[in-house]
């Protein structure tokens, strides 16, 4: 038997991700894709699987899939074909799912992301389109109800190679992928609503006594938060090592692969079922649909229309506009906000000030409202004007926060608001000098330290500046205050 100190190990994680595409209607019929509608109210003969009904492919869903494939650097199959996957389940009215088997929309790509500031890359095996199933509802004892509103909702299933080696990398991959699909506009990517469902497959390579062992693969079903992705992977990593230490035959091929679920409350994965033998889905070509074909020229037009990927956009903010990487990450977190930022830069404001505003000022106001910066309804021009006012010392940084708050409720220009709120910065030396005298009078010890105690001078001077700003209710110009205090202290020391 080995103990933990005798072994080295490496985590191996791959992903299957279901992305619900943001089409108005279902994949094969005209029913609305709508969350929360009364049960079975968004159905028709096609998605109910009634006798004689036939599917017709939603062109938009196909285009979204192609866009995603292109953004994942995949090859797009010239001819992508539909297949039926057979299994019996009450929420699957035809008892087969129309999916894609050997000729998916896209295959053989890669996706780049950053994890803890380090560049990472994962291979994409394939991305195929398929229809979602309905929902079985077990609320009533002794009876199962079926809601088919979700049946036929378009899903893009993205499959990666098992190339991820840490829970942090997995977390970073999932968040960046979600950002990508929302950037592309192909999905709303809302995890709570199940619009993105992550299924990591996890095992561990263990080296012990000069031999290499691999634990059975466990697939964690339907994770719908980034936190649970990280939690499940961390938990599985340790569990599989411990299970192997307890039983060295716990290895792939000797023991079945497993389906497991994530218990969010307890922070553990729970065994669901062993995968003794592969289920026979009896895939065969769907005779009711014709293959979807793509032409190179059409692919080029789609490729040309793709928005810049968030990762690249962030790099441009850092490299070209001099933002720090963390601020850049916040700005590109959603596409509309990033677009707003670019528009404000275009309107003539300094990127650095805008960066500070987006991250510290606008982002906070948005967070208070449970919204994104782009949802605040402030135009790029007004955002740019406020940034310029700060840069030109027309308002202090502190006052800018108050002006920004007022901008949410008033269409007036920020300058006008600053004036009417009495926040327009005071550049008048006399008025500022009076505030300084007031502060000096109230803080004699600090004045002494600032003027004569080399150990405390710097801190004391800073304290005095803060007091002046406070007395002026933020209207004083910090630069002017600093200069006048310095002069006043020099005066003080020559007097002594």
């Amino acid at each position: 038997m080995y103990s933990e100190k005798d072994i080295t190990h490496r985590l191996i994680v791959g992903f299957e991700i279901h992305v619900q595409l943001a089409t108005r209607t279902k994949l094969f019929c005209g029913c609305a894709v709508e969350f929360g509608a009364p049960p079975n109210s968004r159905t028709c003969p096609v998605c109910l699987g009634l006798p004689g009904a036939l599917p017709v492919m939603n062109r938009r869903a196909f285009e979204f899939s192609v866009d995603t494939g292109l953004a994942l650097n995949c090859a797009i199959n010239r001819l992508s074909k539909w297949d039926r996957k057979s299994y019996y389940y009450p929420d699957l009215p035809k008892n087969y799912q129309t999916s894609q088997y050997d000729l998916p929309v896209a295959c053989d790509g890669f996706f780049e992301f950053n994890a803890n500031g380090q560049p990472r890359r994962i291979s994409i095996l394939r991305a195929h389109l398929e229809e979602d199933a309905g929902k079985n509802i077990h609320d009533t004892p002794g009876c199962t109800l079926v809601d088919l509103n979700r049946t036929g909702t378009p899903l893009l299933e993205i499959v990666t190679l098992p190339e991820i080696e840490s829970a942090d990398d997995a977390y970073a991959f999932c968040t960046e992928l979600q950002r990508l699909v929302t950037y592309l506009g192909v999905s709303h990517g809302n995890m709570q609503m199940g619009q993105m469902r992550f299924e990591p497959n996890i095992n561990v390579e263990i080296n012990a006594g000069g031999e290499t062992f691999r634990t059975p693969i466990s697939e964690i079903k339907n994770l719908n938060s980034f936190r649970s992705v990280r939690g499940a992977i961390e938990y599985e990593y340790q569990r599989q090592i411990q299970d192997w230490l307890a039983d060295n035959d716990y290895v792939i091929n000797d023991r079945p692969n497993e389906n497991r679920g994530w218990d969010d409350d307890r922070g553990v994965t729970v065994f669901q079922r062993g995968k003794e033998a592969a289920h026979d889905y009896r895939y065969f070509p769907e005779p009711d649909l014709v293959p979807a074909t793509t032409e190179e020229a059409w692919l080029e037009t789609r490729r040309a229309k793709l928005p810049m990927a968030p990762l690249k956009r962030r790099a441009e903010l850092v490299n070209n506009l001099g933002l720090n990487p963390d601020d850049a990450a916040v700005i590109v977190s959603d596409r509309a906000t990033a677009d707003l930022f670019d528009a404000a830069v275009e309107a003539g404001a300094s990127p650095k000030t805008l960066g500070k505003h987006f991250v510290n000022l606008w982002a906070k106001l948005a967070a208070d409202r449970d919204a994104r910066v782009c949802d605040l309804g402030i135009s790029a021009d007004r955002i740019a004007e406020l940034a310029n006012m700060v840069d030109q010392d027309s308002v202090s940084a502190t006052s800018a926060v108050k002006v920004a708050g007022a901008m949410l409720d008033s269409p007036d220009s920020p300058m006008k608001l600053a004036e009417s709120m009495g926040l327009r910065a005071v550049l008048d030396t006399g008025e500022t000098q009076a505030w300084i005298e007031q502060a000096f009078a109230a803080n004699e010890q600090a004045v002494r330290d600032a003027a004569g105690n080399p150990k405390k001078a710097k801190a004391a001077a800073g304290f005095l500046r803060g007091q002046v700003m406070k007395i002026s209710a933020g209207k004083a110009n910090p630069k002017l205050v600093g200069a006048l205090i310095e002069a006043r202290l020099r005066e003080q020391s020559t007097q002594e």
Partner: protein
Amino acid sequence: MNQSVYDIVTAIGKGETTARAVVAESLAAIAARDAQVRAFVCVDGEGALAAADEVDRRLAAGERVGPLAGVPVAIKDNICTLNLPTTCASRMLEDYTSPYEAGVVERLRSAGAIVVGKTNLDEFAMGSSNENSALFRTVNAWSPDRVAGGSSGGSAVAVAAGMVPCALGSDTGGSIRLPASFNGVVGLKPTYGRVSRYGLVAFGSSLDQIGPITRDARDAAIVLSVIAGDDARDSTNVRGRPFISGIADGETTPDPFSVGVASECFGEGLAGSVRASVEAGIGRLGELGAETVDIRLPHMEYAIACYYIIATAEASSNLARYDGVHYGHRTSRADDIFELYSHSRVEGFGAEVKRRIMLGTYVLSSGYYDAYYKKALQVRTLIRRDFEKAFEKVDVIASPVAPTTAFRVGEKTDDPLAMYLADVYTTSANLAGLPAISIPCGFDEDGMPIGLQLMGRWFEEDRLLAIAHRFLEGTDYNRLSPLCNPAR
């Protein structure tokens, strides 16, 4: 009723009769004769007369009516209709009424046709004799101890027995042509994609096609021109290929044409009387100006095997939805979902349907897929190539429709393989997607009708119909069955 579709449309158009009178005559014929043949699963007298009155009202008001105004039509009961049940002659759908209507039925109704009822079939269109109906057995219009043929037996008998001038059938491997030949009427399987399948309860989706059964070729052309055409609800429907018929407008002379005859279609198992009539029929085509050319269809001998793999594979998937959960028969003795599925299906399906579901499930199973299904797809391609080659040399290919005339009721029910061989000449047209027509060409020693099959190039139904029209002119091969003879 003796009138053809053309006669009825002409007479109503001239005001010589009314839609109500025509429909009433059809209903009277059904009332008089259907008890002997049992072609109809249901008859909608009231609805039909009301629809006829509406046609008459429009005519009286000078409003536009369609090209089938006042024509009674029967619909095979695997084609969805509003108001009338769609049973597929199965216990599974015995009480099922579709909430929507098939594309072809919409087209018929808007052309002014009057749906008088739904006709019997082999359960889910699986059979060649009509003996697989779970409801009751339809028998031949020419002899009650002979089978009607299948699976569109009810539709063929309804036309042959003069109860309606036209009916719709569906053809997956010969299901229109075989019963048409057994009952001495014209049956056309259009090119795959010519007619919308929307609302046709699927058996073999890549093979199924709806087509007309009529007394003569001109009527088939008239009905086809109504049911063919674009339907965006069927992805396999070929757009922009409306069927515009020359003969429906009185243009009856086909261009000079060549007829291919393949020795593969005249081999073992072909009854002598059928061979004689079909050869005579080919001779008659020669008299009409056709040049006869020997051709080869080397993969024809694999057509039946290929067909039964592909059709059953698709059927096993198409029929998976009948599980007792959402609609259709549900068992009363289930303790869990597995029992609900298995008991509902055991109780709801007949033996032949179960046999085909099992066959199809087997050929798609992992480990067998390559040996059966994949190989069948390859053979299908070869069969299609045979036809492409043949049609470089000839305009149409002539063959028997079936190796025998209508066999006796019960004769083949215990021997599924013998039953499957009834489709030996018809399945290849479905595998290749070609149009094919069954034309009456004589009678055997017992007076049973014999059918000549003509297959044409893709989308060349007009040529087939024009030849068939000329062929039938001046013959009485397509006379009504003795059932219509009042002296009987």
